[in-house]
């Protein structure tokens, strides 16, 4: 017979083993992606497969930077950053209006979020024709505007929920204490929603970062994003696995950085909200 302590230890061990197995399963493709990006062409096609490169080889990256392909990651950063900032700003003030002034009655908020459910492919070609007319194809502004428009319903919906959770007395107190409505939003409502702001902007950023279909149709060479660039490496005769993997790593790193950096605020924001006065 096992003692209670032994049984507890066994259960803990099993749980740990399961967690490690799952982590390995999910991490493996990412590990493989990173490894390919450091391999020489011979190593990539070697059979049996080589689990790690003979030496860290940055040639695959050097090529991307030399040919200027890496600028597409910069393009992705620019459009994702500015469209997120714009969508967060416009979305938050729209959400405030919906939450506090019941703008548009009860159902406007539901209607707005339904706009998010439109499949991108259904609207991308009409928008392409429109953009040709306005000369917005293959421009930063064009892509940023589209991402902003596509993310707005989500931001409005999410932020409306967070704002509704802010006790109205806090705002009234600030109004009495000398704030204008705008100051109330800036000094009280947004700080109260910090966790929500961070979470929502991460999702908004990731959408813009990962988007492929809009960027494929609306960009050519000037502002092509990295997702579009990767497709150029799939050829009729052969696939450039070295470039594909190196570019994928470049595209993955910023998301890692953003999430890791924001997580600090994320956790703090949540714990702040959990024990509010």
């Amino acid at each position, binding site marked *: 017979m096992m003692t209670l302590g032994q049984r507890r230890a066994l259960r803990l061990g099993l749980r740990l083993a399961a967690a490690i197995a799952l982590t390995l399963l999910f991490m493996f493709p990412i590990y493989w992606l990173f490894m390919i990006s450091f391999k020489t062409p011979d190593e990539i096609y070697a059979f049996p497969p080589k689990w790690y490169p003979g030496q860290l080889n940055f040639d695959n990256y050097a090529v991307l930077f030399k040919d200027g392909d890496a600028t597409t990651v910069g393009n992705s950063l620019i459009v994702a950053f500015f469209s997120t900032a714009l969508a967060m700003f416009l979305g938050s003030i729209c959400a405030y209006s919906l939450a506090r002034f019941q703008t548009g009655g009860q159902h406007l908020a539901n209607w707005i979020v339904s706009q998010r459910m439109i499949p991108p492919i259904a609207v991308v070609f009409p928008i392409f024709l429109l953009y040709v007319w306005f000369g917005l194809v293959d421009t930063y502004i064009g892509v940023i505007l589209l991402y902003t428009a596509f993310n707005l319903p989500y931001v409005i919906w999410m932020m409306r929920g967070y704002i509704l959770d802010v006790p109205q*007395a806090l705002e009234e107190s600030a109004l009495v*204490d000398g704030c204008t409505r705008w100051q109330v939003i800036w000094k009280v409502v947004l700080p109260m929603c910090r966790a929500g702001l961070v979470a929502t902007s991460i999702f908004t950023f990731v959408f813009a970062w990962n988007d492929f279909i809009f960027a494929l149709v609306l960009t050519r060479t000037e502002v092509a994003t990295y997702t579009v660039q990767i497709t150029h490496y799939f050829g009729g005769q052969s696939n450039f696995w070295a470039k594909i993997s190196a570019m994928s790593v470049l595209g993955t790193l910023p998301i890692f950085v953003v999430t890791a950096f924001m997580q600090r605020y994320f956790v703090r924001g949540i714990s*702040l909200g959990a024990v509010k006065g």
Partner: protein
Amino acid sequence: MADLRITALHKYYGSMHAVRGVDLEIPAGEFTVLVGPSGCGKSTLLRTIAGLEDADQGTIEIGGAVVNHLPPRNRDIAMVFQNYALYPFMKVFDNIAFGLRSRNTPKDEIEPKVKRAAQMLAIDHLLDRYPRELSGGQLQRVAIGRAVVRSARLYLFDEPLSNLDAQLRDEMRSEIKRLHQELGKTMIYVTHDQVEAMTMADRIVLLRDGKIEQAGAPLDLFERPASRYVAGFLGSPAMNFIDVQVVAAGDGLALRLGDGNLLALPPARRVNLAERRDQAVVLGVRPEHIGRAAQGEMRAGLARYGAVIELLQPTGSRTYATFNLGATRAVAELQAHDVSAPGQKIELAIDMNRVILIDPATNKVL
């Protein structure tokens, strides 16, 4: 000069008429309590004064100027909210300093002002903490500190003590009253608690269904209520109301109870009652005006009544005794050892000089 003058004020929420024609004038430096049951419009009235709600009709003047169209920040008011309304992401110091900073107070004036307000409220050791680290009583002190740190013309309190336990409530009550004496500012205080109203107010404004039922000094309202409603609202335990009939007795008047017993009226109480002879009125008598009759005492104005005690509620120094007066259940406030057990027969004396008589048709005091 009046610090606040309200004229014919009306406020609607959709089809609900929350404030129905309130006229009110509050002199500078006075502590006024707006009191009434929930839904009587007292909070709405306060919020309309603050500018958090728009007045639908009527005018509000603060310091002689009409403020109907002004946003709250321009009304020269400070307000304490029921749920403290402290910013959880700011330390106590910044919470108190918030109003000063919003009004662009010079930086070097902020710290001494915050410290002085904190000292006044005995929270100067908490300035570095976050609201989540404070107890309910401390939170309320910070909330008050945030209001008094600014020198406003009007200070508004919206049920600030209703979230505190009984002991803290007593403590904060005297704290706020002391603050009022120290600052000498005009304060308007909303509560549903008649004890708070009685103990704190220079003047009570008793509201009912969006209208002022009666306004005046606490003891005036208590001793000379204008209506059955006011008489019943103030005082704990509440006043007893008994249906009686005015009858002739000897050369004077008396009140006949439902069980046929007579309570003689002293001469002073007979004025204006002659024409009510043989009519029904409502007798209002406070529990503290019913006592145990002393042996052989026949003081003028005392009416004797033999009662069987049904229920006893000792409170320590006093005991509340329930019995039947006429056909109605009534409460007497007796000395602790006047009665020993329910079922006991006892001779009670009702002080007829202190009772009120109410017209059952209008519910106004005669």
